């Protein structure tokens, strides 16, 4: 069997590497040593029993990465990152990939509880199948629990860790991996390609409407572990899928680097809805600690009439560098970006989207709501462009910023380029402050300072919250209130 041969090859490769590079590869080890090198890349690949083509793909990315520089154009500041001082692979202490929930370390389940995973996911993790939400939980770098697989399999939907998809559906992974975000795309995406640990893989076959919302929780738990998720979602012709991603991380003192890549491919008449709620540790009030979130998310509306919609609620991370984008390649393709970005304390957010109109009669819509409090800086950066052939392209952008207090900043940086005279782009932007008048008015009616702020902010973001799946919207609303605690008075 091919798979067996690959495994044998991989094991042989490890031995060769160990000898060749003087690096003792302990296949049982939970962690790769600190730092990044070809050996580490090979080690990660070997840990995952990857085929040669993928090992080579990673190595090519690594070599490319060595020639690249960190992007400097974002409005964020941080001390230099020592890429040799990070771990690039860590597995949880328990046996990776348990066959059933009983094998899951109860300590891990307790962690989920502490992290406040909503009851419905806890029930699912506990085996109570009351709600149709499939969770592929990523704990550090290895998936430890996957549910609802059978029901999805009945519909022909593939939903599994990408490391598993490499073994079970190599033809799909090989065809689509890096086809939206090429290995050479940008510093962080290239780094991710070299060292990605794991992530989710979704394939929805032709004409299938995925029978449930797909959901993944990412956690960062090991100290000093860079997390490099890789997600690939493919919606084949005429299919539909809605994917929810939610994140939290426990408190850490050191800054943690997170550089994920998400690739979406929508073929003819297919639709993908991708929703994110992100509340990673933002650092303390002095700006110490917190996650660096440098993420590349991109969707390719490859087919005619395809439709990709990004919805994000961002409240966490010390630094966010994130631009979920749509390439509107197919004629009549549609791209959407709905975003709420909340920053407090010393958080820095530079986020937005890109809508690249290539096909005819392509449409896009951007609704961005930025809320800055404390001493945070919140930047919307968005690009809308029409290619020469993008006859009849249309975009509508609405970009509102709300300031709470007088020590934070809101910035709006739109880039608009049109090479087709028939393209119509509209851009609206406002910046406002929560006024003393509004707060006092609501407090005079009986609402506390925090209730009043939450109410006003929730009014401000209402257009975007309406885009989220119902149960997610309620969580997001609470999360926004929590992140703004202590920002008034």
């Amino acid at each position, binding site marked *: 069997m091919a798979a067996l041969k690959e495994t044998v090859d991989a094991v042989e490769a490890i031995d060769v590497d160990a000898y060749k590079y003087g690096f003792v590869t302990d296949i049982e080890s939970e962690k790769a040593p600190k730092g990044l090198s070809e050996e580490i890349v090979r080690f990660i690949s070997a840990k995952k029993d990857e085929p040669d083509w993928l090992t080579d793909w990673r190595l090519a990315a690594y070599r490319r990465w060595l020639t690249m520089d960190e992007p400097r154009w974002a409005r964020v500041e941080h001390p230099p990152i020592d890429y040799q001082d990070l771990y690039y692979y860590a597995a949880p202490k328990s046996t990776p990939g348990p066959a059933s929930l009983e094998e899951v370390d109860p300590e891990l389940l307790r962690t989920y509880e502490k992290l406040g995973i909503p009851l419905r996911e806890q029930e699912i993790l506990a085996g109570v199948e009351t709600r149709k939400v499939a969770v592929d939980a990523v704990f550090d770098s290895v998936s430890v629990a996957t549910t609802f697989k059978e029901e999805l399999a009945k519909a022909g939907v593939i939903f599994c860790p990408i490391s598993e998809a490499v073994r079970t559906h190599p033809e799909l992974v090989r065809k689509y991996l890096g086809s939206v975000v090429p290995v050479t795309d940008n510093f962080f995406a290239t780094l991710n390609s070299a060292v990605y640990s794991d992530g989710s893989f979704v394939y929805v076959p032709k004409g299938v409407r995925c029978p449930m919302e797909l959901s993944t929780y990412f956690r960062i738990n090991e100290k000093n572990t860079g997390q490099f998720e890789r997600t690939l979602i493919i919606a084949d012709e005429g299919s539909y899928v809605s994917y929810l991603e939610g994140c939290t991380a426990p408190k850490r003192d050191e800054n943690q680097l997170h550089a994920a890549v998400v690739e979406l491919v929508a073929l003819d008449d297919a639709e993908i809805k991708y929703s994110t709620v992100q509340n990673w540790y933002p650092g303390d009030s002095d700006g110490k600690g917190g996650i660096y979130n440098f993420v590349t998310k991109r969707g390719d509306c490859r087919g005619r009439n395809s439709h990709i919609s990004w919805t994000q609620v961002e409240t966490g991370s010390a630094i966010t560098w994130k631009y979920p984008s749509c390439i509107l390649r197919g004629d009549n393709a549609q791209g959407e970006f709905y975003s709420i970005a909340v920053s407090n304390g010393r958080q820095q957010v530079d986020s937005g989207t890109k809508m690249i109109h290539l096909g005819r009669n392509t449409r896009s819509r951007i609704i961005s709501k930025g809320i800055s409090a404390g001493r945070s800086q919140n930047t919307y950066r968005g690009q809308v462009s029409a290619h020469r052939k993008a006859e009849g392209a249309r975009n509508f952008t609405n970009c509102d910023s709300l300031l709470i207090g007088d020590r934070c900043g809101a910035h709006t940086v739109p880039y608009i380029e049109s090479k087709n005279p028939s393209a119509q782009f509209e851009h609206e932007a406002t910046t406002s402050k929560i006024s003393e008048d509004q707060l006092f008015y609501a407090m005079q*009616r*009986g*609402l506390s300072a925090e209730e009043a702020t939450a109410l006003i902010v*929730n*009014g401000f973001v209402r257009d975007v919250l309406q885009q989220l799946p119902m149960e997610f919207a309620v969580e997001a609303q609470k999360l926004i209130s929590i992140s703004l605690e202590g920002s008034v008075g």
Partner: protein
Amino acid sequence: MLEIKNLRVSIGERQILEGLNLTVHDGEVAAIMGPNGTGKSTLSYVISGRAGYEASEGDVLLNGQSLLDLEPWERAAKGVFLAFQYPVEIPGVGTMTFLKAALNAQRRARGEEELQTPELMKRVNAAAAKLGVAKEMLRRPLNSGFSGGEKKRMDILQMSLLEPSLGILDETDSGLDIDALRVVADGVNALRDKNRSFLVITHYQRLLDYIKPDTVHVMAKGRIQRSGGPELALELEESGYKDYIGEAA
């Protein structure tokens, strides 16, 4: 009953209220009249607890209890309601959502059970019908895009829903045409009750043609200069405020 005793308030370097005394009994409608810039709005803010309007001396008691150390929302729960000179727009927040949040916050603070939506709707619709507030307005975000008259009516609607023991009307007549003024005044009159006091702050006699006060107090230079019955308002209409500001700097 509202009792204001020797109230002194400065904003920045400027002394605005200089030992103001005033008592308003239960069921009484007291009009405060006075020239511009004499501290009438300041008085309404001090009573309701707006940040930046703190008393340096004196006290404000509602039903025997001092309000000055309470947060604005605590005062609201105790029964203080301020109808604003310029009611504020809150975009994106549905009017019904706001009304429910406010009413239930007050009920919670008083240890009462929260009101469920159907009961709330019933009360709001009844009040809206009386005040001529269109149902369509209740579906819009609070005060967003409302005309001046609509905003004032919405404030009175809130007052009738929240059933305060003290209603303060701060220049409610400003910006209202005569028809809107009549509707608002009728709304206030309908709320007159033996357990409820009103403080009607106004610059002109006009409002008092529609909301008949029991007592009239002339305020100038940070104090009540003279108190009397409704006839005092008519006298002021004739003579103006010059007698009260004569020796002002």
